[in-house]
């Protein structure tokens, strides 16, 4: 296995007056898949391009298995890359595209075509090997691009929003295929995306970026359940932001007191951060504290949007079976299901 670890330390990169990366640090272990997630313009693509050597950092170092490659040109970095836009060479057939990296490494024709067919077989496109790239669908083109990036056994695989140009169903299939391949080949992978579902579903760890810095990097579970900042809490998944009073480490929400998890003011007005699945909605015309605005049926679960007496909008995610008697306009009682809640300053 040729896979290596990747370390970025204190990387800074400016474009004119815009700071794309600000003392950015990241470590990716051997065989690990790390996703960089963030809103557009947060610097995630710049970080990936610095790793690829397509962009040169103003400061900082890039290490691959402790070897400093900061000054190594892109073509000598031995990193496979899949781009957001279709990037296949239109003058080459599918197999020639996949064999391109090996051709550049002066591997003889028989060996490189053999390797190309192995990779095409892995992505399920061996039967298309003689076709030209414009004869393939978008999903197939990205599969070929993935095969091309893996064919020369790169030390690091870089994925720059490879799924964002594809249809919803193809995206889901291909992201799972990427994960399957990545696990079976054990390739260290850095995956840039703005789609949190994509990042959370296939990554070992997800780094959330904002304004050129890494806000938090953690497993998808930890990121979702224990966000380290209000930004991460709001960016990853849906989060209700409910104004509440805090005193003695307890927050009062919907009339009950719940333990507050770290940060925020010690007393006074705060914002409680609560996931929709941690809020239950019960039809109650006697002691209601909210009204249902909408109910969206999504199969197994339903999304209920309510408004409290003080005007706060609260979302709840419940099993559809338990929401049958909830209709727009119904008087309901909201309850917090979790025993602890995150709070942020109001």
């Amino acid at each position, binding site marked *: 296995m040729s896979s290596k670890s990747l370390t970025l330390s204190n990387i800074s990169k400016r474009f004119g007056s815009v700071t794309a990366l600000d003392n950015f640090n990241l470590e990716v272990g051997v065989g690990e898949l790390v996703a960089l997630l963030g809103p557009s313009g947060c610097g995630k693509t710049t970080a990936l391009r610095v790793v*690829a*050597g*397509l962009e040169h950092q103003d400061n900082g170092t890039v290490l691959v298995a402790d070897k400093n490659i900061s000054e190594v*040109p*892109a*073509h*000598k*970095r*031995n*990193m*496979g*890359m899949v*781009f957001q*836009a*279709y*990037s*296949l*060479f*239109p*003058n*080459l057939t599918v197999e020639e595209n996949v064999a*391109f*990296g090996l*051709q*550049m*490494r002066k591997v003889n024709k028989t060996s490189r075509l053999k390797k190309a067919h192995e990779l095409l077989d892995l992505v399920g496109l061996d039967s298309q090997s003689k076709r*030209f790239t*414009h*004869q393939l669908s*978008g999903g197939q083109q990205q599969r070929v*691009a993935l095969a*091309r*990036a893996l064919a*020369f056994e790169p030390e690091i695989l*870089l994925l720059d929003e490879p799924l964002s140009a594809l249809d919803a169903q193809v995206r889901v299939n291909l992201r799972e295929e990427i994960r399957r391949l990545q696990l079976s080949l054990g390739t260290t992978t850095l995956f840039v995306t703005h789609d949190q579902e994509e990042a959370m579903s296939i990554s070992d760890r997800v780094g959330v970026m904002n304004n050129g810095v890494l806000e938090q990097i953690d497993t998808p579970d930890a990121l979702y359940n224990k966000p380290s900042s209000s930004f991460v809490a709001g960016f990853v998944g849906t989060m209700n932001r409910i104004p509440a009073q805090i005193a003695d480490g307890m927050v009062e929400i919907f009339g009950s007191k719940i333990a507050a998890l770290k940060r925020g003011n010690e007393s006074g007005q705060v914002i409680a951060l609560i996931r929709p699945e941690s809020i239950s909605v019960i039809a109650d015309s006697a002691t209601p504290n909210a009204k249902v605005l909408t109910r969206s049926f999504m199969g197994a679960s339903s999304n209920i949007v309510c408004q409290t007496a003080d005007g706060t909008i609260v979302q709840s995610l419940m099993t559809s079976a338990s929401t049958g008697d909830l209709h727009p306009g119904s008087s309901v009682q909201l309850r917090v299901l979790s025993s602890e809640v995150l709070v942020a300053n109001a």
Partner: protein
Amino acid sequence: MKIKLQPPLAITLLILGFFVFVPMISAFEYSIRTPLTGGYGWTHYIWAVTEEDFLHYILRSMWLAGVTVLITLFVLVPTLTWLHLSNSKVRGIIDGLSLLPLVIPVVAFAVGAQISFPEFVQNTVLELPFLYFVLALPYAYRALDIGLSAIPLKTITEAARSSGADWLRTITSVIVPVIRGAVMATIALTFALSLGEYTLTVLLHWDTFPTWVTYVAQENILGAIAISMMSLILPFLILTIITLFVPERSTQGRK
């Protein structure tokens, strides 16, 4: 397939026919006349190809045109690739500069060259391909510019580089094959322009095929026309051969 002749197309064809094809056909008809017998024949063509200087000058012009094509591709492909990738403001300036040869009279250009070029440059016929390159620049530049604008240059360049291709391989193995059409157009334009260039050549006192034809015309006008007809067909033949030898690869349907 039946092509419906729309008025704009009909007008274009009419003007083209009147000003291009009618004179050409007339010239051809004239060149195969045999005044002595009053009929038609290939006399002047046979005279032209057996003329001892014919081969000498046609080969010389083709050789110079070939060198011009090489200079053009060698200079313009990397330059334009860089201009497109860097997205620099310089591109607008270079765009404008590349049009200058259309505005500057060739006479001024030739006189300027004679005054300013050092003697060792003026002593070699190789000064011509460089000057032809400048004359062909407005056309060659635009042909390549359009070719590069039509492809996702940045992405395929980066894909090539991250796959292990250095800049030279990226240009020769990826960019040039992908913009093959534009490269062929550049070769055709530059080659044809160099092969037919007269004014600059004669002002700089060089002899090439076109200057030789005017010389011949003074003593045998029908022979000169026959030669001109052949020199018209020749670039077409050469370019057809080039096209046949460069394998056609599929580059349609890019997204």
